């Protein structure tokens, strides 16, 4: 059974079909790409999968469980974490605290224990610090742990967002244009990191990307979206050589 199964997903905004009859099945551990021209509805799909928008029809199953129409926080708790196209960090928190915020649900103590600094506070905070540093190391951000997130250069901010998402211990990771605004060197590095995350964390990853080098380099399967509808779906190579896809991208 697929980890993520989406059937006939659709949403309208005041008569406009933003996404229509969207189907996808992603196996556990797969690295899956969602591509398409600007305005095709890719981010809308992400917003539907994470409960930012409520779908007008269709079903979303995660690990066999129906998560359709649930609230964002419940979907995150069920195991879906994401990053954003326009980076959304906590700029006034340190890099490490950004990751620790992601660890929020996995590591608990009560408000009173926190204020009075009881033993559990000390123990759990220590665990959180260690886990946060582990994650930061994966993304080579451990040296900047004490910087304010807003002081990081752009490429590192994108990585920090991924680290924060991973901190919630998800089953499925959604990356919205992770390479946007990166130079070729940074993109190469990012590709390695994503592959590393896939292997090391046994993570299932769905990503939106425009950088074809990245898509063809790491995605195992692809879905192409055009005008809110699935244009093509399948193995990366086959999809990218599909003449319809090429037309959609380059125009007639």
């Amino acid at each position, binding site marked *: 059974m697929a980890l993520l199964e989406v059937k006939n997903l659709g949403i309208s905004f005041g008569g406009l079909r933003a996404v229509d009859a969207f189907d996808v099945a992603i196996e556990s551990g797969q690295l899956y790409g969602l591509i398409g021209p600007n305005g095709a509805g890719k981010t809308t799909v992400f917003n539907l999968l994470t409960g*930012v928008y409520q779908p007008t029809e269709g079903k979303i199953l995660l690990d066999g469980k129906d998560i359709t129409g649930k609230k964002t926080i419940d979907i995150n708790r069920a195991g879906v974490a994401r990053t954003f196209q326009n980076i959304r960090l906590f700029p006034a928190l340190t890099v490490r605290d950004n990751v620790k915020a992601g660890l929020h649900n996995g590591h608990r103590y009560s408000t009173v224990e926190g204020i009075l600094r009881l033993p559990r506070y000390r123990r759990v905070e220590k665990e959180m610090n260690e886990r946060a540093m582990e994650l930061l190391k994966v993304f080579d951000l451990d040296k900047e742990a004490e910087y304010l997130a807003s002081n990081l250069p752009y490429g590192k901010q994108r990585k920090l967002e991924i680290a924060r998402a991973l901190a919630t211990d998800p089953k499925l990771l959604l990356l919205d244009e992770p390479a946007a605004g990166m130079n070729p060197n940074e993109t190469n590095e990012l590709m390695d990191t994503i592959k590393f995350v896939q292997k090391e964390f046994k993570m299932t990853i769905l990503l939106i990307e425009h950088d074809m080098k990245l898509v063809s380099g790491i995605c195992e399967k692809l879905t192409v979206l055009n005008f809110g509808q699935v244009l093509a779906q399948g193995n990366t190579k086959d999809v990218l050589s599909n003449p319809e896809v090429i037309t959609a991208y380059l125009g007639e």
Partner: protein
Amino acid sequence: MSFLSYLINGISLGSVYAIIALGYTMVYGIAKMLNFAHGDVIMIGSFVVFITTSATGMNPLLAVLLSVVVCTILGMVIERLAYKPLRGASPLAVLITAIGVSYFLQNIALLLFGANPKSFTSVVKIPALNLAGGKLIISGETIVTIVTCIVIMIVLTMFMKTKPGQAMLAVSEDKGAAQLMGVNVNKTISLTFAIGSGLAAIAGVLLCSAYPSLTPYTGSMPGIKAFVAAVFGGIGSIPGALLGGVILGVIEILSKAYISSQLSDAIVFGVLIIVLLVKPTGILGKKINEKV
């Protein structure tokens, strides 16, 4: 019949709120700031009329005109000295500065005129209207207030169609884009403050003609209520200010008459809270969605 007379009084008070609310709403729309000193401009305007009519015996209409000029200039000066340097700073910083300006105006008035309430002589010389065989009396002040409010609304709506009015709309929509299209943003903001403050002078005179006790703190509460009216109707919207002001005035007078004179403020604010909970951006406000 008494209900009708309360209702008319409410509309009259609401018209004053509406005129003050216009100042709030226009400034908020364009500068995205809560101009807390607006209420005190009303008070200054009323003092100008009080001093000139009682001390020099100036013709009341001339005094009102003078008051409008003084307040218009005052509004522009305040904007130039206190708010303009803070353009681009946190809205909270501008808010606190506006509070400082409000304290400043109140204390200047306190120094110049003292804390004792002055008894303001109405500038309205129109006789009261006797209807239904003396059962319904509408005072001259009420008539003038409502008519003034209607005239101001019509003129302002027409003004918004002119070039400077369009420039105002453009600046309130997007400052940067307006600048690129050749709109002089500084001048437009200055003009907005000028109009808002000039209207405040008129509102002050109308308010003091109906409620003739004038102190340095006179403008404070009506200012707050007018601001509430602006939010009520949907801040940034001119018809919203009219609607919010009138509804607020009517609720205030009716609750004073039928429920409790002491609790009327609590009722007014209570209704505001309920309206905002049902319609979070006010009656005529636009809903803004955050893009993800």
